[in-house]
C-alpha cells in the first residue's frame, strides 16, 4: 500500500504529458462531430462527389445539365479563382471542374463544335465516371429530341431512363460505422501514449540506483514492493482507459450500450493489457527520462501507421500488412473491423486472443529479462 500511494504521488508530476493526448483525443472528436453531416443509411446511393460547374452558357440545355449533375453530386455554389480551384482539385476537395462554354447548348443540338471542358485528375476513376454520366445524359436527351420530343420532355425521359434506384439494392450489411468506430479505431494511439508517458517515468524513478538501494536496505519486502508497483501501474493505466471511455460515453453514449459497444469496450480492455505489459517491458530497461517521449512517439506512431489505425487496412500494401501482423494494433484494428463488418464471433475471439498473446509475450520477456539482469547484477 505504501508503494501504491507513493506511485500516485509521483504520477502527479507526470500526468500533464498524458493529459495532452487526452485533450487531443477529445478535441479531434469534438471537431469531427461538429463538422459532420447526417450520415443516415439510405440504402445504395450513387457515388456523389464535390464538383464545381462554371456555366458560361445561358441556354436551357446547359441549365438542365447543371440541374441533372446537381441532383447527383454536390455542386459548389461558391465562386473561386482558377488557382484556388486547381488547388482544391489537387487536394481532392473537389474532384471535377466543369466549364460549360458560351454557345454550348445551341451547338450541341446542331453542329456539336462547342464542347464541354473539364479539369480532373485523369488517373482517378471519379473523372471518367462523371464524364460518362454527362455523355450518357446528353446522348439520351439528343436521342429523345431526334424522336420528336421537346427539350423539357427529353430531359424528363433521360432522367427516368438513367434512374436506377428501383433496380439496385444493397445487401443487408448490418450496423453502419458511426463515430463510435472512429473513437475505438484511434483509441490505441492515445491509450498507448498516455500509459507510456504517464507510467514509464514512474517505473524508471523506482529503478534509479539510489532509490533501489534504499528500498533494498529497508524492511519493506521485495514482493510487496513489486506488487505495489504492479498495482500502481495497473490502476493508473485503468484510469487512463476510464477517462477515454468517458470521452466515448460523452460523444456516443447511445452506441456504447449496444452489442457492438460491448465488443469494442472488451477489445479496448484487452488492448489495455497489451499497453500495460509493453510499458512494463520498457520499464525493465535502464532508460533515460528524456528518452520516454521519444520512444513513446516512435513506438506509438509506428504501431498505428503500420497496424492500420491511421490508414485504412485495405489501403495498406501487402508488405506493410505483413509487417503489421507482428504488431498488436493490427489485431486490435482487425477485431474492430470485424465487429462492424461481419460480427463473426470466432474471428473476433481469434483476434482478441492474439492481442492477449502479445500481452502474455511481453510479460514473459519482462520476467525473463528482469531475472537475467538481476542475476547479472549479483555476479
Amino acid at each position, binding site marked *: 500500500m505504501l508503494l501504491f500511494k507513493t506511485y500516485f504521488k509521483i504520477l502527479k508530476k507526470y500526468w500533464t504529458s498524458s493529459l495532452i493526448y487526452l485533450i487531443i483525443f477529445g478535441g479531434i472528436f469534438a471537431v469531427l462531430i461538429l463538422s459532420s453531416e447526417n450520415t443516415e443509411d439510405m440504402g445504395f446511393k450513387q457515388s456523389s462527389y464535390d464538383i464545381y460547374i462554371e456555366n458560361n452558357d445561358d441556354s436551357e440545355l446547359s441549365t438542365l445539365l447543371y440541374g441533372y449533375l446537381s441532383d447527383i453530386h454536390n455542386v459548389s455554389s461558391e465562386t473561386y479563382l482558377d488557382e484556388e480551384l486547381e*488547388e482544391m482539385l489537387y487536394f481532392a476537395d473537389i474532384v471535377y471542374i466543369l466549364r460549360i462554354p458560351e454557345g454550348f447548348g445551341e451547338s450541341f443540338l446542331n453542329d456539336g463544335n462547342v464542347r*464541354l471542358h473539364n479539369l480532373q485528375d485523369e488517373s482517378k476513376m471519379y473523372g471518367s465516371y462523371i464524364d460518362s454520366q454527362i455523355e450518357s445524359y446528353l446522348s439520351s436527351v439528343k436521342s429523345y429530341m431526334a424522336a420528336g420530343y421537346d427539350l423539357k420532355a427529353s430531359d424528363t425521359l433521360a432522367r427516368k431512363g438513367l434512374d436506377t434506384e428501383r433496380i439496385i439494392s444493397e*445487401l443487408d450489411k448490418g450496423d453502419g460505422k458511426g463515430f463510435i468506430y472512429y473513437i475505438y479505431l484511434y483509441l490505441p494511439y492515445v491509450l498507448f501514449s498516455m500509459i507510456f508517458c504517464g507510467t514509464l517515468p514512474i517505473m524508471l524513478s523506482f529503478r534509479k540506483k539510489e532509490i533501489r538501494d534504499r528500498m533494498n536496505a529497508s524492511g519493506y519486502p521485495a514482493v510487496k514492493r513489486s506488487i505495489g508497483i504492479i498495482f500502481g501501474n495497473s490502476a493508473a493505466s485503468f484510469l487512463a482507459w476510464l477517462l477515454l471511455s468517458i470521452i466515448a460515453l460523452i460523444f456516443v453514449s447511445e452506441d456504447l450500450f449496444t452489442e457492438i459497444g460491448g465488443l469494442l469496450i472488451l477489445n479496448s480492455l484487452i488492448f489495455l493489457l497489451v499497453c500495460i505489459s509493453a510499458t512494463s517491458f520498457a520499464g525493465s530497461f535502464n532508460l533515460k527520462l528524456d528518452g520516454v517521449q521519444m520512444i513513446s512517439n516512435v513506438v506509438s506512431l509506428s504501431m498505428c501507421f503500420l497496424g492500420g489505425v491511421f490508414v485504412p487496412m485495405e489501403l495498406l500494401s501487402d508488405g506493410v500488412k505483413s509487417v503489421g501482423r507482428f504488431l498488436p494494433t493490427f489485431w486490435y484494428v482487425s477485431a474492430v473491423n470485424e465487429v462492424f463488418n461481419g460480427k463473426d464471433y470466432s474471428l473476433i475471439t481469434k483476434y482478441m486472443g492474439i492481442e492477449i498473446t502479445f500481452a502474455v509475450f511481453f510479460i514473459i520477456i519482462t520476467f525473463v529479462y528482469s531475472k537475467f539482469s538481476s542475476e547479472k547484477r549479483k555476479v
Partner: protein
Amino acid sequence: MIRIFLYQLKIILNNKTIIFWTLLFPVILGTLFYFAFGNLYSEESVLKTIDVAVVDETENAEPYQMFQAAAEELEYSDGTAILNITYTDSYEAEALLKDEAVTGVITVKNNGDITLLVKESGIYESVLSGIIAEYHKFNTMINEISVENPQALEKALSIFYEGVDVNVTDSHTEGNKDPYVTYFYNLIAMMCLFSSFSGLGIVVNCQRNQSDVGLRVNVSPVKTVFIELAGIAAAFLVQLVCVLLGLFYLITILGVNFGGEIINIIITSVLGTMLGVSIGYLIGHVGKGGLNTKIGILTGVELFCCFLSGLMVGNMKILVQKHCPIVNKINPSAVLEDAFYAQNIYGAGERFYGDLILIAVITVVLLIVGSIMAGRNKYASV
C-alpha cells in the same frame, strides 16, 4: 569569432535530444508516411477491373445473351477490361458478395430487366450502376418511343448507338499530382520549424539568468551579441545539414517524388531553416520563462502550425483557406508547404517567389524584433 562558432557547433551537436527531434524523428515519421501513403495514389490511380457475378434467370434467352455479349466487351480507354464476370446461380453469387469476392451481383430477369445487388455504396458499385443504367436507359427508350412515336425509333437508336463526344479534359500541370506528397512537404516544413530549438538553445546559453553556460558567457570579455551571432550561424548550419539529410533520405533513398526542380526545394529548405532558427531566437528573448517552458510552448505552437498546414490531415490547408485564408499567409508552416506545392504544380513562378519573399520577410522581422528584445534584457546585479 571562428573559435566561438566552433564551440557553439559542438554544444549543438552534443545535444542528442535536439538532434533526435530535428533529424531522427522526422526521418522515422517520413518512413512511416512512406509506408502508409507511398502507394496510395498509385493504388487509387489504377483503373481496376471489377469482379462481378452474373446470374441468368432467363435460361439463356435473348436478353441474357445480349447482356453477356455487351458486358464482356466493356473496357476502359486503355483497353483494360471493366468487368471480370463469374457466371453463377443466385445463392452462390450472394455468398461471393458477402465474402467480398465480387463487388456486385447482376441478375438478368425473365422479363429482360436487369437488377444489381451490391454490399455498399462506393465508386466501383457506382460504375456497375452506370453500366446497368445504360441498359435501363436503352430499354426505357425503346418502350417509350415505340409507343409514342414508333417511326422515329430508328433515328433515335442511331443517335443512341453513335453516342456523343462532348468532353474535353484540359491539363493544368505537368507536376506530381499525388496529394499525399504534401505530407512530405509538411514534414520538411516541420523539420525547418524545429530548427527553432537550436535557435532557442543558443539564446538560453547566452542569458545569465537562464543557464550556467549563460553565466560563464556573460563574464567572458567577448560581447554577447557576437556569441549569439556565431551561435545562430552554427545552429543554422547544423539544422540545414539535418534538413538536407532528411531531404536526401526522402528523395534519394525512399524515392519520394517532390515534383518540380531540386534546386527550388533546396532554396525553400534553406530559407525555411533560417526561419526556424529565427523563431527560436525571438522566443528565446521573449519573457522570463525557463528553457523547458519555452520548448514546450514552441513545440505546441509549431505542431499546431503544422496541423493547420496539413501534417496530420492532408486537406486541412484547404479548409483553412476557405474559412480564414489570412492564416495560410502568416502560418510559417503553411507558407513553406505552399512554396513546395507551388514549385511542383506551377514551377518557379510568381507564387513560388512570392512565398520565398514572404519567408524571407518573416525571418528578417523575427530577427530584428529578437535583437531589439535582446537589447532590452536587463538583469539585477548579483
